[in-house]
Structure formats: C-alpha cells, structure tokens
C-alpha cells in the first residue's frame, strides 16, 4: 500500500486526529538524516564545482594576474569557433564506437543469455575479467597489436584493404596506428563491456517460452528476433548505448595513446587547456558546451526510445 506524502495537508479537526505520535514524527525525519551526509557531499563536491565552473567560463584574465568575472560570453563563441572540428570528431568517433559496440556486443550478450548453458558463468567472467587489468595498460597493448609491423597491419595489407581504407580517410599511409581507425577501435574496445552488461541483463529477463510462442505463431527465427527479442531488449540497448556514448564522447585517452594530432577529441582540448595552457575560462566553456550537448542528446534519445526509467 502506498503511503503518499501528506504535503500541505490542511490542519485536521483536532477531535478526530490527535497530534502525531512523537515516534511517528521522528520516523518522518529518518530519510532526511540518511540523505544529509551524502547529499551534502554531492552538493559541495559536485554541484558547487559546476557553479564555480560556470563562473570561471565567463571570466577573463591570466594565471599571473588572476581571473575576474567579466561576463565574457564570447569565450563560448571563440571556443566553439576554434574547436568545432574536435567537437564534431568526438561526436562522430563516439557514435561510431557506440554503433560498433552494439553490433559486436549484441551477439555476445545473446550468446551468453540464451546459448551458453553451463558455460554462462565462465563467459561472464571472461567479459568482466579484462576490467581487472588497468585499462591504460590494455590500451597500450593495442599499440602492439596495431603497430606498423604487427599482425593487423600485415593482414590488412596482404588483403589490400589498407589501400581502400586509406582512400576513405580511415587509415593513412598504409598504417593503422595514429589514424581514426585506431582511435575508434580503442574506444570500441574500452567501452564494449558497458554495452554487453546491460544488454545481457535485459536479454536474460526474456522468457524463453516467448521464442517458442513466436515460432508457434509462424515467425521465422529472424522475424522472431526482429519482432520479439529485439524490442524486449530495448531497455538494455538504450542503457548500453548511453553508457558507451557518454564516456566515449568525453574520452581523451584513446585519442592520445592511439591517435595523432589529427585525431584529437574535445577531451584532449579540455585537458590541455586546463592542465597545460592554464586557460581556465576556455576549458570551462568547452566543458559546459560538451555537457550541454550530451545532456541534450541523452534527453532527446531517452524521450525517443520511450525508456524513461533508467534510474
């Protein structure tokens, strides 16, 4: 039975309703005491910093002379004007990596959920296990795998694929490292488990009898997948794409380790503006633009996919 919060209840007739018991009043306060430390923490170390950053983004000045709030909104336009290629690249790389994650992750999630039988637990461990090695180390391993003399380049080279990919601008000069291909490959790899786990969770909930029912009602396997399995796994698809896209769009590690200066993403720009150039207003403005863009895209996406109960 639900117990709606009595907000703004008119004072009841005193004869009918005695004043609430002190124990009951204390019970009402329990959630606030539980929330207090954690929410205070988030307000101080998450919300307040965003406010500080907002104010920083409209400041002018330098590290030596100090920064002053001058309501200099032009920083936003300047930043966008100068760094829009990196923005577009971030969105493009992240979207590509998310699509690849979905394409690669779905079969594996499906395999674990429906076909693995007694191997299910082992496969799950194998999906999660890579997490346990620092992801920077694993990303560096891709340097070996994709290196100029490495197996991938020689395989692609002998198949004469590299010429084609060079022409498409995905690779350059018959090498894979320091090209868009390498960065997208790294992003896909890094965020693949974030796609697989929610996909698996929603696939696993699907009653196996639904497949039989669909088959019984004249659906061929592919139709069953299109009309039954995939729609039912939508919550997983939505959660997975969000969990992949958001961090991928802000990532700068893959671009830094596997790419060259031509593959810099917006994360790289923010990082270098903040930590190297020490141009805090520009870094803050870029952060805000990125945040706003992502929140807008996420909201739109959640609305469109009709899955609003992710949290």
């Amino acid at each position, binding site marked *: 039975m639900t117990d709606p919060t009595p907000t703004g209840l008119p004072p009841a007739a005193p004869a009918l309703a005695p004043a609430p018991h002190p124990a009951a009043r204390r019970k009402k306060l329990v959630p606030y005491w539980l929330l207090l430390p954690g929410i205070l923490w988030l307000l101080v*170390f998450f919300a307040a*910093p965003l406010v500080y950053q907002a104010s920083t983004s409209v400041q002018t000045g330098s590290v030596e002379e100090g920064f002053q709030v001058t309501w200099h909104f032009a920083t936003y336009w300047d930043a966008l004007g100068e760094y829009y290629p990196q923005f577009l690249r971030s969105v493009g790389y992240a979207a590509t990596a998310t699509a690849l994650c979905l394409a690669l992750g779905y079969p*594996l999630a499906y395999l674990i959920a429906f076909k693995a039988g007694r191997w299910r637990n082992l496969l799950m461990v194998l999906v999660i296990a890579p997490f*346990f090695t*620092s992801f920077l180390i*694993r990303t560096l391993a891709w340097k*070996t*795998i994709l290196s100029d003399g490495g197996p991938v380049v020689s395989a692609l080279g002998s198949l004469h694929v590299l010429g084609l990919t060079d022409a498409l601008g995905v690779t350059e000069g018959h090498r894979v490292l320091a090209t868009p291909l390498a960065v997208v490959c790294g992003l896909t790899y890094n965020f693949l*488990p974030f796609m697989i786990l929610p996909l698996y969770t929603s696939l696993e909930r699907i009653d196996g009898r639904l497949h039989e029912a669909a088959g019984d009602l004249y659906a061929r396997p592919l139709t069953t997948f299109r009309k039954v399995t995939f729609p039912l796994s939508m919550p997983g698809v939505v959660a997975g794409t969000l969990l992949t896209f958001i961090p991928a769009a802000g990532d700068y590690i893959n671009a830094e380790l596997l790419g060259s200066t031509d593959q810099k993403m917006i994360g790289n720009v923010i990082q270098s503006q903040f930590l190297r150039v020490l141009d805090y207003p520009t870094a803050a403005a870029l952060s805000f633009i990125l945040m706003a863009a992502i929140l807008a895209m996420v909201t739109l996406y959640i609305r469109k996919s009709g899955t609003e109960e992710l949290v």
Partner: protein
Amino acid sequence: MTSPVRWLRRNLVVIAGLGTLAYLILPNVIVTVFSFNKPNGRFNYEWQRFSTDAWTDPCGVADLCGSLSLSLRIAVWATLGATVLGTMIAFALARHRFRARSSVSTLIFLPMAMPEVVMAASLATLFLNMGVSFGFWTILIAHITFCLSFVVTAVKARVMSMDPRLEQAAQDLYATPLQTFLRVTLPIAAPGIVAGALLSFALSFDDFIITNFNAGSTVTFPMYVWGSAQRGTPVQINVIGTAMFAVAVLCVLVAQLVGGRRKRS
C-alpha cells in the same frame, strides 16, 4: 544449400559472439605475453626475447610500486566513504517517501550522465578557487564523489527488490528498529552493498581522467602508466597488470566454487 554454409548460418551468433570475446580478451593476452619480453629500447611494444627479469623484480622501476600502493590506499578509502554515504542515500530513496525525492534522484543521476572530463575539470576549478593544494585528499574527495552514484544505484536496486514485509515481520517479532536494520535489512541488502563497494574499488583504482585533473604532482598507478607511455614503458607494468588480472580471476573462481558448494549443501 551446401552443408558448411548451413552450419555457418546456424552458428552465426555463436561465431560472432566468440569473435567479440576474442576482441575483448586479446589485449590481456598481449599484456601477459609481453610481461615476459626483454625489450631493446625504452618501449615494450615489440617482441624481442623471452625473459623473466621483470617478474623477479616487479618493483625494480623507480616509483612504480609507490604509485601502486597509493592507488590501493585511495581505492580502499574511497570505497569506504562512497559505500557508507551511498548506502544511506539508497536506503532513503528505496524505503522512504519524502519531499524533494525527484531532485535527489536527479542529483544522483547527473554524475553518471556526465563525461568524466567535465566533472574532473569542474572539481579542479573548485579546488583551485579554494586554494586547496592538490594531492592525496583532493584525489580521495574526487573519487568518493564519482563512486557515490554507482553505490546508490547498486544498493537501491537490491533494497527495492526486497519485500518490505520482511522488515515488518521483524518488527512484528519484537525486533526494535535498530535490531530490524542489523538483523534483517542489512544482511539482505549485503549483496547490493558488496557489489557497490567492489564497483567503487574498481572504478577508483582504475580511474585516470578525474585523477589527472585533481592529483597535482601526486602519481597514482594509472597516472604512472600514462606517464610511462611518454617516457618509456617498463615491462614491470605488464607484470603488475597480469598479476592483478590473475588475482581477480582467482577471486571470482573461488567465490563461484564456494557459492556453488554452499548452494548444494
């Protein structure tokens, strides 16, 4: 239709799935193999010859093990802090009705919906403005902040799926509110809390982006690896990566075995 083609069609999902798995595992194999390499130059990207030098002397490179122990210490404290704070919020959200409920939910959700780099930069801005000197404490605060939401999500899911009648039954059987919490609520919510704690530990230990902005000159293990990508990658990095992987897989296997045996008895 020839039979190999038919076989391929029938097993397409299995083949594709295993292919993805190979893609996921491949870097770990490389890391392991190259932990036995003896590279010529400063970088450990090309195979030269077999050697166990790095394994016999894992702390042989300056600062490596120091950064590792710092990362472990931060991860332990961040896990503790985030788990305590997050569990409390999760209980409030899952078990109580109160005003501002949806605002609280949004405040919990936002840190997860935001690219790390944004959170990292804004927190660093706060510290800069406050004149706080960067180091252990700023890293710890940053880690607790971003782990908090994940703990809330994990614990809340568990508490929500718990039958509220269990707590009522405890009260009906003479357990005071405190006893109810300790004897019933906490043990049943434990798997969620443990999951949240493990996730926090992993996130904190492996975090680079937020640490990079808030560490100052302090070097955690991921930051050491990052730096080494510029300066030269010692084989010891691979040794530590491989060892972590082995220990973690071992833990999971032991947990599975123990869990399986307990279920059977």
